[in-house]
C-alpha cells in the first residue's frame, strides 16, 4: 500500500459518513419515491402497492387545479424574484454608502430573515386582517376600512409576495453587500476621471463586476419562491377561492401546497408523489437553465 492509496483510503473514510447519510436520506428515498409514483401506494405499512404505469401522471395533467397551480407558481416566482432582487439590491447600495447608522440598517433589514416562515405568515395575516382596516378607519377612508385583502385573489398574491420579500430581501442583501465591497475602487476612480456619470458607472462597471452575485441570488430566490410553503400555510392557507375556466380553484395553492394537499388531504399519496417528481424535474430544468445563462454573463478580472 503506497502513500497515494493510503491517502485515498483516508479521504474516502472521512467522506463515508456524510456520503452515507446523504444516500440514506436523499438518494434512496428519491428513487423509492420515483417507484411509488408509478403505483397506487397508500403509505399504510404492510400493504403492497400495485403497479399502475403512467396513470398518476396522466391524471395530473387533466386536473385543472394542478394546471392552475402551475401557472400561479410561475407567476408568483417571476414577481417575487424581481421584487426581492430589486429591493435587496437597493438596500445593498444604501448600506454600502457612507451614511449614519449603516450597521443598524443592515441588521434591521436582515432581522426578518431570522423569523420563521409560519410566525411571519401569522404576523402578516394579522396586519392584513386587522391593522389595515384600523388604519383606514383612522384616516377616515371607507374603502380601506372595508378592504378585505385576503378575500381578493390578486391582492392576496401581492400580499404573499410582500411578506416573502420582507422575509428574504435581507438575506439576499447580504450577498449583494459582499459583492459590492469587492468591486475594485481604482476602476471606479478611473472611470470618474474619464467623466462617467453615476448610471454609466453602474451599468458598465458595477453590474458586470457583481454578476457572480446575480447568479447566486437569482438561483436562491428562484428556487425558494418555487418551493414556497410555510408562509402560504400561515398567511392564506391556499385561499381565497378564485374562478378559472369556470372552475373554482384556490388562488394561492402553489405547487408545494398543492402537492401536500393531494397527498394528505385527499389521501392520494402516490398521486402526490407523481406530482412531486414533475415538480422536481421542472424546478431542476428551470434552475439549471438559469445558472447556465447567468454564468455566461460573468466577467473575469
Amino acid at each position, binding site marked *: 500500500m503506497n502513500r*497515494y*492509496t493510503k491517502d*485515498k*483510503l483516508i*479521504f*474516502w473514510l472521512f*467522506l*463515508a459518513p456524510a*456520503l*452515507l447519510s446523504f*444516500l*440514506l436520506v436523499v438518494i*434512496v428515498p428519491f428513487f423509492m419515491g420515483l417507484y411509488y409514483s408509478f403505483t397506487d401506494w*397508500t*403509505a*399504510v*405499512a*404492510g*400493504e*403492497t402497492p400495485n403497479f399502475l404505469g403512467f396513470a398518476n401522471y396522466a391524471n395530473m395533467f387533466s386536473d385543472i387545479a394542478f394546471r392552475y397551480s402551475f401557472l400561479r407558481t410561475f407567476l408568483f416566482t417571476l414577481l417575487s424574484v424581481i421584487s426581492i432582487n430589486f429591493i435587496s439590491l437597493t438596500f445593498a447600495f444604501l448600506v454600502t454608502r457612507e451614511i449614519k447608522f449603516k450597521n443598524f440598517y443592515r441588521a434591521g433589514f436582515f432581522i426578518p430573515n431570522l423569523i420563521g416562515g409560519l410566525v411571519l405568515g401569522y404576523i402578516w395575516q394579522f396586519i392584513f*386582517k386587522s391593522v389595515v*382596516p384600523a388604519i383606514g378607519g383612522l384616516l377616515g377612508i371607507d374603502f380601506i376600512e372595508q378592504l*378585505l385583502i*385576503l*378575500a381578493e385573489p390578486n391582492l392576496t398574491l401581492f400580499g404573499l409576495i410582500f411578506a416573502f420579500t420582507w422575509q428574504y430581501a435581507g438575506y439576499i442583501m447580504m450577498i449583494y453587500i459582499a459583492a459590492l465591497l469587492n468591486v475594485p475602487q481604482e476602476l471606479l476612480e478611473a472611470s470618474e476621471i474619464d467623466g462617467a456619470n453615476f448610471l454609466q458607472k453602474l451599468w458598465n462597471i458595477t453590474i458586470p463586476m457583481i454578476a457572480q452575485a446575480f447568479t447566486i441570488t437569482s438561483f436562491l430566490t428562484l428556487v425558494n419562491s418555487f418551493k414556497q410553503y410555510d408562509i402560504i400555510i400561515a398567511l*392564506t*392557507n*391556499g*385561499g*381565497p*377561492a*378564485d*374562478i378559472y375556466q369556470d372552475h*373554482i*380553484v*384556490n388562488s394561492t395553492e402553489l405547487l408545494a401546497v398543492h402537492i401536500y*394537499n393531494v397527498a*394528505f*388531504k*385527499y*389521501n*392520494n399519496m402516490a398521486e402526490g408523489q407523481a406530482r412531486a417528481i414533475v415538480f422536481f424535474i421542472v424546478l431542476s430544468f428551470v434552475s439549471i437553465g438559469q445558472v447556465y445563462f447567468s454564468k455566461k454573463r460573468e466577467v473575469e478580472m
Partner: protein
Amino acid sequence: MKKLFALLLTLLLVIGLFAGCTTTDTDTTDTTDSDAVMDDETDDSAGDDTADVPMKDQEVVIYQNKVEIHEQLSAFAAEYEAATGVKVTVKTSGGDSPYAENLKAEFQSDRQPDIFVIEGMGGYNTWASKLTPFENEEWMDLTALEFVVDGTTYGFPVAVEGWGMAYNVDMLKKAGVDPASLTSQEAYEAAFEKIDSMKDELGIKSVVAMAAGPDMRWVTGLHNFNGYLSAGLEFGDTTVLDKLNMGEADMQRLTEYADWVELLFNYSDRAVLLTGNYDAQVGQFGTQQSAFIHQGNWIDPWMISNGVDFPMAFAPHASVKGELTTIFIGAPSFYVLNNESENMDAAKAFLNYMATNEAGHNYMVKEAQMVPAFTNVTLKPDAPLSANLAEWVAKGKAYTWLQNDMPDGFGMGTIAPIYESFAKGDITKEEFINLIKDKIEELK
C-alpha cells in the same frame, strides 16, 4: 483502478450499514397467522395469540388525536394503572400537527400503537387491513354510536358531539324570538330579519357568526354540507350519502339547501365570513356581537377559558324545507384496535373500563368535559352547550353525522371553495347549486 477499489470499499460499507438498518422491517407481508410472522423485536409471536402474556405485564399504547384531552387522558391512564397494574401510555398528535400523517409514520417506523383513532369511513378504508373487530364487549350494549361496517363493530365511540345553530339565550329573549319556534327556513328567515332590524339595540355586528374562509373550510364543506346529507332524515338513513358516493346529486334537496346557505351568508358579518379564522368566528359570538353561531359543543372549552358565561343552547339547522326537529349528533372519532397488537386483551379491557367504570365516567364527563356515548352514564356535563347537547341526546332523536363518510378531501378540498366564492358574491345561487352538482357527479 485504485479509485475503483476505494469506491467499492465505500459502497460495501454503505450497503452493509443499509442492510443492517433494514432488517427490522422484513415482515411486511400481511398475516395474522401467528406462526408465519417473524418479529425481531420480541421473542413471542405476534398476532392474536396473547394468552401466554399475563395482562399485568402488557403495556397498552394509545395514540389519539385530541390535544385538548391529552392531560386528562394521561391522568386517567395513571389512575387505571394504580387500580389494575396495567400500564397505559397516551401519545397525542393533533391540532396543527396532522394526525393522519403521523399515524402512518408511526406504523412505518414499527412503533405501532395498540389503540388508535379513525374518523368514519375514510379512515376505515385507509386502515381496513390493520383493524380487528370488537366482539362481546360489555360496552357494546350501552351505546348506539359504535362504528359498524357490515354488521361488524370496529370502533369505540370516543364521545358524542353535536352542532346546531347555537344561540345566545338572553339575546333571543330580548329580541322576542322564541327559540322553540326555530324549526324551519321560514321561521329562521323571520327571526333573522327581526334581530337584524334590532342590531343597534342588541349591540351586535351581525345576526349569525359564520365563517367560510380558507381557514374554516370544515365549517362549510363538512358541517354545513352535512345538512344536505342528513337533515330531516331518519337517524342512520344514508340514501343521500350513498347517492353522492355514486356520483348522483339530489337536485330537490340541493336547491332547498342552497336557500339555507344563502340565508346564513346574508346575515353574517362579511369580514368574519370571508377571512375570519376560528378565533374570529367564536370570538364574535363569545363577545355577544352575534345572536347565533354555526358551531358545535366543542366551543365550550374556548368559552370557559375566555370567561364567557352567558346561557346558550342549540336550535336545529333548517338545512332543507319542512319541519326540522333536532340537531346533528354523532361520534366524531372512534378508538380502534390494531390487529398486530400484542396487548389486545389489555387494550380491550382498558376501553371497557372507561365505558363501564365510575372512574371512566368521571374522566369523560368531569375531566375531559365530553359527552359520553354510553347510556349508563349518569353524570351531567357542566359546560352550557355540552349540557344542552346531553338534553338533545336524551330526547332520543338525532340527525346523523355523515360528513366523514364522503370520499377523502371532498368536503374540505373540493366543495368548500365553492361556498367561499358564493359568500364573496363571485357566483350566483344558481351557479352554486350547479357547481356542487358537477363536483358530486365527478365522484362517479
